[in-house]
């Protein structure tokens, strides 16, 4: 069902009442599970994700235990809970899930200092409990928190955000880029997911599956990267608050 987002141009307010550059309510917890090496729980609006880290540990398969060149292997498993969507659906390993897994695997194998753990595997288990847009971004943020909790060294936070272009018609020029989309907006607008390394502007993950006019991409990227910086502050606060408990 196409959704009418044309009301945005009237009040400059989005469907859920946010302005163009506002993030949704973000709540994060770190070290939620005692049995895991690292764990985190992240809510971005109604998207809720739980991540647990096992490792660095000896891999499960008997064959190749670690990654190539004496580096640790990063494995990601994403599970969609049956109740996560609007309608109850069992998701078997489809292409979208495996692409998300692959994205996280490649992003984290370059970010983590994997050469410190030769012949070992770091397994990330991500449970998606409730989905309402920005799924990949939520997975990346939750995984970063869980890896920090597990104490696996990395150079900086990998944080992600989504950004979209508000204009649906090609000719309208006064289009605001929108930050942090929910499910309805994702269905309607063309959007991208951008992940950056901490405070820097270095983009580490960039995925876009929809079409958009060339000149709008720059604005979307700028807003997305700006959102990532704010996201980093939020996650950093979560980690520091958790650390204060032990000081």
């Amino acid at each position: 069902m196409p959704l009418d987002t044309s009301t945005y141009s009237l009040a400059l307010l989005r469907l859920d009442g946010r302005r163009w550059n506002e993030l949704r309510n973000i709540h994060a917890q770190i070290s939620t599970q005692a049995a895991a090496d690292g764990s985190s729980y992240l809510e971005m609006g109604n998207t809720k994700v739980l991540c647990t880290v096992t490792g660095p540990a000896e891999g499960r398969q008997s064959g190749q235990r670690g990654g190539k060149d004496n580096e640790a292997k990063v494995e990601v498993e994403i599970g969609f809970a049956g109740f996560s969507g609007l309608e109850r659906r069992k998701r078997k390993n489809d292409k979208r899930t495996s692409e998300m897994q692959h994205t996280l695997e490649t992003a984290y194998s370059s970010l983590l200092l994997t050469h410190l753990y030769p012949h070992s595997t770091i397994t990330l288990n991500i449970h998606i409990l409730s989905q309402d847009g920005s799924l990949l971004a939520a997975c990346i943020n939750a995984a970063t928190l869980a890896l920090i909790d597990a104490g696996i060294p990395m150079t900086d936070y990998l944080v992600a955000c989504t950004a979209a272009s508000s204009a649906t018609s090609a000719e309208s020029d006064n289009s605001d880029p929108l930050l942090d989309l929910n499910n309805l907006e994702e269905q309607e607008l063309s959007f991208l997911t951008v992940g950056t390394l901490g405070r820097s502007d270095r983009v580490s993950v960039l995925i876009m599956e929809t079409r958009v006019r060339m000149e709008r991409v720059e604005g979307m990227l700028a807003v997305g990267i700006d959102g990532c910086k704010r996201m980093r502050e939020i996650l950093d606060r979560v980690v520091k608050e958790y650390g204060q408990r032990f000081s």
Partner: protein
Amino acid sequence: MAPNQPQQVTLSPAELSFLRSTLVQSPPIRFDHTKGPKDFRSMRAEYDVLPGANGSARIALEDGTEALVGVKAEVEKSQRRPSPDARGNTLSVAAGDAEMRDTDAENHGKGKGQNSWIETSVEIPGFRDDDPLPVFLASMLTESLLASGELKDRLYINSRFHWKLYIDILLLSPPLSYPLALLSMTTHLALLTSRLPALKSEKDEDPLFDDDWDAAVFLYPKNEGKSLFGAAEDKPPVIVLAMAVGPNIIFDPCMEELAVADAVLAVACANATSSSTRARIVSIRTIDPPSHLTPPGVPNSMNSATGGTVPASSADALTQRELLATSGVWTPPRGGMKRALISQVVKIVVEEGGVAEEVISALQAIELG
């Protein structure tokens, strides 16, 4: 018999023997020595954690195992089945309309529920969907839910439509101890707090629901005022694990305790709605304890390194081991559970102030407080 847990316990025969000898003492000293034989592990529980589910709950035990359950209900078209009492119904309508309406309100959907209206799935990280452990856990949980019978009748809307209840159970941590009790308690809490939209349409119309979530009715109706009549409200069943070691019975065993169990029972109990006792047993199953797979210890008399003689044949070894049964050298337990112990377990679970009542009221208290 349900399959044993996949994770092998890494305890040596000497450790197993020590653990067992403390557990068979009277009173038993448990692995966590602060606990008595009927004490459960402490837990953190919360409910209504998911915005998109009819009911949800999350329970984390003190050993780090954690489960999350989401209950989702969908309206489904019932398959038309010729029912033998359909003719009788129309006749009685002709006889007395007012009378009929009364009984209809009372017996709405009574006996019309079908087992297929409840679907349970268990997901355990690191396991495939069709691995024996999740499949058995799911079937045991469904079995206990269906056994009491009232739940499926409540999913009846009218002769053409019914609710289909999907219970998705997620174990968020690796299965450290046999997770059945944890999953069952989480499911209990989720079902207790599940709500279905209130029905606005009547009789056999296409179902139309009240879109006000505040008007939704609980799947397990609460009757605060009616408790005077003695008819306790119906609650979902809950499964408790009981384990036998020698003459002792220990409830809610942890992973290490399971490794020395003689036998393990999964007892599903629900609170009684009519009888004089406070709880009733819905189903009992034995679970193959991991202790059956533990390696036996080698006694000094059979070990050439300590001055013994290695038995010549395997038959010889067997007879020597039989004689050693009470010597304290670890031998994996064999056989099942004594009948007297089973009746003792049942008694402890069902009696007034027993384990069943305690667990059910504790889970109820989470919701109230």
